[in-house]
């Protein structure tokens, strides 16, 4: 453990990882809480997997056609926003079953991503970091990018908190009262898309769902008001990410997986403790 802290002082990549954890925790806590209370985990999952398509395509055009500014991160943002828009349109105006559309986006995103990555010469190893993330590879440019996306998320949620609350809690009543539920739901889906992109950098697209649900679900056990759940989830997310970096670095394990294991362990521990406690106090 002490070896870790001497390394932390010496290596900038570890310092970057710690700073990045602060910013990813903010969107993880805020948007994770919305994902849990709106029960839209599968929307987040579909967006996450569509991100691979965007990353793969961006990398392909960057390498093959030499378009330098087209980074995988910007490809990811475009793909995630596009997927979020399609999902919102289908939910509000489409006659198609939402579940089917989510699965289609999920699979098509993965498929195009893998095709593009295979077609890109010599970048096969990138696939692993897209799928499972690597917070230790984050650059200072990535941190600025993540921080600015965070700012957008925090600002919009601050502005529309009460509208989001009503639209999530009573969508039918909101519509009857003349509130444009389609607009606010689309906005929330777009913010989810931005968060998915941010979190993909840390835990990879496969495990994004865990990051968006576990800390918020754990936090919801401690409070019955949404903004408090957001604060607690943000704090939990920060501690779990830092803990994950420390543990994985010391034991030479993959960071993203370790963070998820810690988050999952905490959540399971909490619900089993609650279950045992309620059994003890039950009369019959």
């Amino acid at each position: 453990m002490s070896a870790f802290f001497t390394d932390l002082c010496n290596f900038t990549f570890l310092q970057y990882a710690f700073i990045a954890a602060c910013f990813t925790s903010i969107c993880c806590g805020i948007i994770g809480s919305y994902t849990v209370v709106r029960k839209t985990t599968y929307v987040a999952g579909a967006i996450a997997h569509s991100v691979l398509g965007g990353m793969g395509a961006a990398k392909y055009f960057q390498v093959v056609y030499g378009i330098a500014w087209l980074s995988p991160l910007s490809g990811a943002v475009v793909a995630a926003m596009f997927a979020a828009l399609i999902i919102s349109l289908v939910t509000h105006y489409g006659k198609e079953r939402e579940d089917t559309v989510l699965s289609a986006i999920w699979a098509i995103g993965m498929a195009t991503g893998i095709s593009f990555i295979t077609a890109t010469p010599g970048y096969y190893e990138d696939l692993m970091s897209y799928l499972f993330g690597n917070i230790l590879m984050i650059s200072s440019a990535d941190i600025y990018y993540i921080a600015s996306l965070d700012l957008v998320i925090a600002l919009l949620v601050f502005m529309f908190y009460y509208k989001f609350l009503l639209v999530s809690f009573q969508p039918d009543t909101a519509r009857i009262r003349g509130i444009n539920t389609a607009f606010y739901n689309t906005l929330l889906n777009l913010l989810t898309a931005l968060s998915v992109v941010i979190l993909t950098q840390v835990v990879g697209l496969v495990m994004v769902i865990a990051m968006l649900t576990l800390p918020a679900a754990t936090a919801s056990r401690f409070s019955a008001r949404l903004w408090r759940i957001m604060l607690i989830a943000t704090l939990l997310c920060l501690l779990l990410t830092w803990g994950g970096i420390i543990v994985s670095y010391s034991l030479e394990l993959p960071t993203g997986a370790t963070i998820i294991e810690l988050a999952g362990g905490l959540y399971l521990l909490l619900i089993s403790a609650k279950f045992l406690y309620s059994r003890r106090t039950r009369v019959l």
Partner: protein
Amino acid sequence: MSRSVKEKKTEIVLNYRDVCFAYDQREVLHNINLQIRSCDMVAIVGPNGGGKSTLLKLALGIIRPLRGRVELFKQPLSKQLINRTGYVPQSMAYDAAFPVNVLDVVLMGRAERHLWGRYDQADRSAAYAALEDVELLHLAQRPFSQLSGGEKQRVMIAQALSTQPEIIFLDEPTANVDTAIEDKIFNLLARLKESVTIVLVSHNLNVVTRYASQIVCVNHVLTQMELPELTQDSQHTRNYKNMLVLQHDPSCPVIDPADMLHTPHREALRGEQRD
């Protein structure tokens, strides 16, 4: 609230004029003419699929009539009128475990007044006043998920009241509560009737006849019919003034809605244009 109750009594708040409505090809409502006056408590009853929810949806502007028109406060339905109406959803229309407290839920009734940002002092005082009306002021900070079914429904009524409406629509307000709580909710509504017009949809004719000042029975068609004066010994009759009930009673002819659907549209007879 400056005008006297008596003066308000004469006003028609909600007016259905020759309204027809069909989902796809199936006509649900046919030639509906109904006037609801201020400070009345009107219960819409009828069989499932008879069109009582549709009648409510037409007044709320969720759907538009195929023929005829619906007027609220003597004006055609519009977004500007929303602030003058309140709506209480069915008790299963929301996630009961959602992390909000009672005050949050009541304040949601005023969410459409602000484009963005927080609630102001006027919103909060309206919310507290509404909670006082439903006698739940002491639970303002309580998590919504910890309330009983009846309390949840009263919070929803407070939410509708927080908009300071002139008319409240309730969709099956007591669908999932027991009789004692049902009575309590109807007592509350009977009290609110002094200042607000109440329109509710209900399955339960029994409880509704005790409290409502007017009962509208809808089964595709709606026929206005004077019932014979009810005997005084029935304790359920004290509020009858104007009743539109179709019941299978030997003294009343039974009207077959299927036959009634074939009568020509009144508007068409008059040669009016549909809007």
